[in-house]
């Protein structure tokens, strides 16, 4: 279908509600025509993704004008459907039994919906259209918040149909692609915002779009620490506790580097959360909680972060993993806890709200626990309405994917019986790293 005039395009968007599109590609009403109408998808999938380097994104965003904004909008508009089509082909290649599994089928539908919407979106020629486009992007990002828990749930349940390697690599491709699409979309929305509002920097740290050019690591650690410590002190299984452990930072305290703030803070947040949880489980009631030590190191081309806790190590929780990498696997073959009832229930609950894998989302959730009730969704009997979130178990695998996205690394070493050391290394974006592409 082609649309030559703009008003007609808008009409299309108004008249085709999401549900109609959903039904066309719903698996539950799978008809032979779905098979034969895969052509459009294959055409897109045959194109290669046109990647931009991070450097290009930063330089592009430095001196904005209307033309550049529109150029950016149309790049996002044409690029994302190509990338989504690759993921759809990936999904189509999975075993039938996996894609029809609960969770995965929802993701498949969501991706089809996004693909159709992008594919049919008309060219953006004015700033007003760009505004509408940004709203569209935001809405789509919101809808897709349920992808991570759904995929996690579905793949955990389908663990037995896929080899651990295949499962993990599929999941990794999906999540990596998701990160890059979100970065492009969010970067464009952020650029639009700073262009149209003409505000000064919103935060104290300079940034271009979502890339913070001088991200102060110590401040990020402190932000995450204070957010975590401001939670109502409660831990699952144990109920209320006195307080959270402290976090002491040392090393190169002035270290700064260009990075996407949301990514760094998600990783640090998750790792500190794990460290605090382990510390409490091991020491609560046995005297003062040992502090968690964070060491920040500014290398020549990297930033290093070491988080040391005294939480007893990785193998003391009665889990059956063989090495620390298994904690980052989505397969229950490698990490049996993925199929524990509690995990599955928690994932199912999370699929209702969705997970964006940002710090802000988690903070909002525990500040407004009643928001779940407001939406009128029924709560499963076993989950109480409390501020403590049942653990879903995707913090580590997601952190690893975020960490390795630009070529960094995340490694865990256990001092069995004593504690764990986590080594995070993130490359300084923009220094000799021309070929990091999104």
């Amino acid at each position, binding site marked *: 279908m082609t649309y030559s005039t703009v008003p007609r395009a808008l009409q299309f968007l108004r008249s085709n509600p999401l549900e109609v599109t959903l039904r066309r590609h719903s698996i539950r009403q799978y008809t032979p025509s779905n098979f034969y109408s895969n052509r459009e998808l294959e055409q897109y999938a045959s194109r290669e993704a046109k990647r931009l380097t991070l450097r290009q994104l930063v330089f592009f965003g430095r001196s904005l004008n209307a033309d550049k904004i529109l150029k950016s909008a149309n790049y996002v508009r044409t690029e994302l459907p190509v990338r989504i089509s690759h993921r759809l082909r990936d999904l189509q290649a999975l075993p039938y039994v996996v894609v029809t599994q609960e969770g995965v089928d929802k993701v498949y539908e969501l991706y089809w919906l996004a693909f159709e919407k992008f594919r049919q979106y008309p060219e953006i020629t004015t700033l007003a259209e760009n505004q509408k486009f940004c709203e569209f992007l935001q809405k789509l990002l919101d809808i897709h918040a349920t992808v991570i828990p759904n995929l996690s749930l579905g793949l955990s349940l389908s663990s037995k149909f896929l080899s651990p390697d295949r499962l993990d690599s599929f999941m990794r491709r999906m999540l990596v692609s998701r990160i890059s699409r979100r970065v492009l979309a969010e970067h464009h929305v952020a650029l639009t915002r700073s262009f149209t509002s003409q505000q000064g920097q919103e935060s104290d740290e300079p940034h271009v779009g979502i890339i913070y050019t001088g991200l102060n690591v110590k401040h990020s650690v402190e932000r995450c620490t204070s957010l975590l410590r401001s939670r109502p002190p409660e831990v699952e299984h144990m109920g209320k506790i006195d307080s959270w452990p402290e976090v002491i930072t040392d*090393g190169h305290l002035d270290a700064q580097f260009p990075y996407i703030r949301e990514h760094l803070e998600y990783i640090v947040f998750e790792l500190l959360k794990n460290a605090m949880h382990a510390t409490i489980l091991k020491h609560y009631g046995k005297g003062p909680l040992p502090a968690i030590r964070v060491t920040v*190191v500014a290398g020549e081309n990297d930033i290093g972060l070491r988080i040391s806790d005294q939480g007893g190590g990785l193998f*003391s929780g009665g889990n059956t993993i063989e090495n620390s990498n298994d904690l980052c696997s989505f397969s229950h073959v490698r990490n049996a806890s993925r199929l524990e009832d509690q995990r599955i229930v928690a994932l199912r609950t999370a699929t209702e709200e969705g997970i964006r894998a940002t710090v802000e989302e988690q903070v909002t959730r525990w500040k407004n626990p009643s928001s779940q009730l407001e939406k009128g969704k029924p709560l499963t009997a076993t989950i109480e309405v409390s501020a403590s979130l049942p653990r879903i178990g995707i913090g580590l695998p997601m952190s690893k994917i975020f960490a390795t996205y630009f070529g960094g690394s995340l490694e865990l070493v256990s001092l069995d019986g*004593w504690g764990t050391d986590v080594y995070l290394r993130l490359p300084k974006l923009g220094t000799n790293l021309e070929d990091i592409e999104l």
Partner: protein
Amino acid sequence: MSRGPSFGKRRARMLRAASSRLYATRALPRPPSPEFLELLSKYESTTPRPLNLSQLLSFGRPVTPDSVLASVSYVLYELPRRLATRVRFLETLPFIVGTNPYVAQTTKAFQESFQTLAEHPPVRNLQENEEFARMLSDIVQRHANDIPTMAKGFQESSRYMPPEEINAFLDGAIRNRISVRLIAEQHIALTHALHNPPKDGQAMGVVDTKCSPRQMIDMCGSFVTDLCYATLGNAPTIVLDGQVDATFAYIPVHLEYILTELLKNSFRATVEQHDPQGTGLSLPDVLITLSAPPSRAPRSKLNESSAPSIPGEHYLSMRIRDQGGGVSKAHMDRIFSYAFTTANSDTARKNRRIWEQEDDDDDEPLLGVVADQSLRTGMGTIAGLGYGLPMSSLYARYFGGSLEFKSLEGWGSDVFVKLRCLDEAGDSSI
């Protein structure tokens, strides 16, 4: 200015002396006698009798005249065979490497030891065993400095062999050496135990069931501190935390070796990073954390099974943390290789001033001094040749333990050592 009249004569004398030296080193080493070769091939072709740790220790449980005689007959069977393997490996090195005086010296020592043991008559009674144990002790002593000697030889020959081959050779040589010494020293210990019988009649020999890492750290720490002050002018303090009073069953000399090498690395890195001139600036501490093997704790409501996942395998874990600047990414691949050292740096040359020594241009002064010192103490350890990490790793892994190295480039390094508790490691092969 013209040179004096005697110059010509002096010059001629110098040349003659030099050429005779050259001639001497060009002479081929004398080949071994045909009888020796026959003996060697006889032992090479005997079937190996592999031993595991519990079998080795069983000679001491209990220690009786019979068990000691059983032990010596095992020693006389197995040691010559293992030494024959070692001799063969040395002989198959490239010829040019074999003519290196240090390598040749080692080969000769092994050939002699092999011959002594291979030609030794069977030991029939305790008196003969006394003699034998004394002789065995001498042999062990003779080989105390094998590693530094071979290391020196390989350093000099590094351009004649690719690094992978050197690594593989040294790995095999050191592993072989560990097992030979283990068998020999276990027998010597059992012989002594016969005179000083332990209360319960059970001699673990070389294994100390209550080996204390804390005591070891104190001992090795003070040795390395002295060495560090002597060579670099400063030394950091060791701070111990974690389960400081943990003890476990292990072979003390192995733990001693590992600790000494790792502390040497951390100390050297700390001083070079924070006080390269050795003027006595304050240094960040080296932090050692100990974690004892998890005991079979009563079940808590949190963990269904607090026992470790693999029954029967307990480890003592140790983390050595320094602020010595870490290891750069470029070096990370090479630090476990025998042929690599970070002592070939400008700092080492700067340190020449401190020692006021005139060394050859080829030798690193740090290498020369420390190797001499270590040779003098007879510990058979080296620093500056870069053997510390790969060897510590080998020792740690010998009974199924592990060594992991993590670095924060620009800040410091962490070394994680896990050592298997030997009272439950009976199945490890020697």
